């Protein structure tokens, strides 16, 4: 049950910040995060090989983007056609994030008068 261990290590590492003193905290956190790296490295070793064209990520999705993108969207920069056409809703969310950041910053700065 390797993964349960990771889970609880993560949770414990997050929680740790609030239960122990400063000196103990830094040492324990380093140990725990070292353990997390150790367990993550198994997952990394198992990941699909870097740069291999037969990885699961290279399926029909990027294939269609690359082959039919220019004729379907009219843009030869495929990243542009993905962010503003195929997945335009993400970009609407992103524009909203920018708007929200402005709204939050202005509201915070205006309401707290010195």
């Amino acid at each position, binding site marked *: 049950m390797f993964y349960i261990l990771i889970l609880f290590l993560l949770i414990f590492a997050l929680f740790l910040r609030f239960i122990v003193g400063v000196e103990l905290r830094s040492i324990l956190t380093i140990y725990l995060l070292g353990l997390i790296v150790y367990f993550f490295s198994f997952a990394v070793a198992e990941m699909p090989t870097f740069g291999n064209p037969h990885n699961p990520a290279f399926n029909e999705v990027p294939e269609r983007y690359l082959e039919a993108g220019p004729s379907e969207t009219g843009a030869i920069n495929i990243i542009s*056609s993905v962010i*503003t056409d195929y997945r335009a809703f993400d970009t609407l969310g992103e524009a909203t994030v920018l708007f929200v950041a402005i709204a939050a910053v202005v509201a915070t*700065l205006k309401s707290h008068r010195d």
Partner: protein
Amino acid sequence: MMDDQIVRITSRLVAPFIQLYGIYIILHGHLSPGGGFSGGAIFGASLVLIALSFNLEAGIKQISHQTASVLESGGALGFALTGLVAIAFGGNYLANRSAGFPLGEAGQFFSSGAILVITVFVGIKVASTITTLFYNIIEKEEPLGNHKQTD
């Protein structure tokens, strides 16, 4: 902020070119690396540069608070409304070709229908966001320009 002749003259010389470059990047988002976000950030950076090398008032002279907030809301609103136009033309929300936007020939400047429109709106939005964030965070410090340069 800085009381330095060289910095002022250089930034005044360079700023229009930076702005032009930003506009180029925004408009050629569908043809070359770049797009609304990078171009908008470059354009916004030129305004930040002016505010940094002169003072805040000089920056605000370039783009006032009123204009900035209209541009911000306008950029996001334009994006959302472009999607609604697609619904009016009979496609789904944010559709491009299937809503009947003219695509043109791939590789030409006027191609890609709604992508160009959306990129311009996003560029406006990002440029105004960067300047507004910067102005709002540095405002209400001690009046700018009172700092004497100590070098």
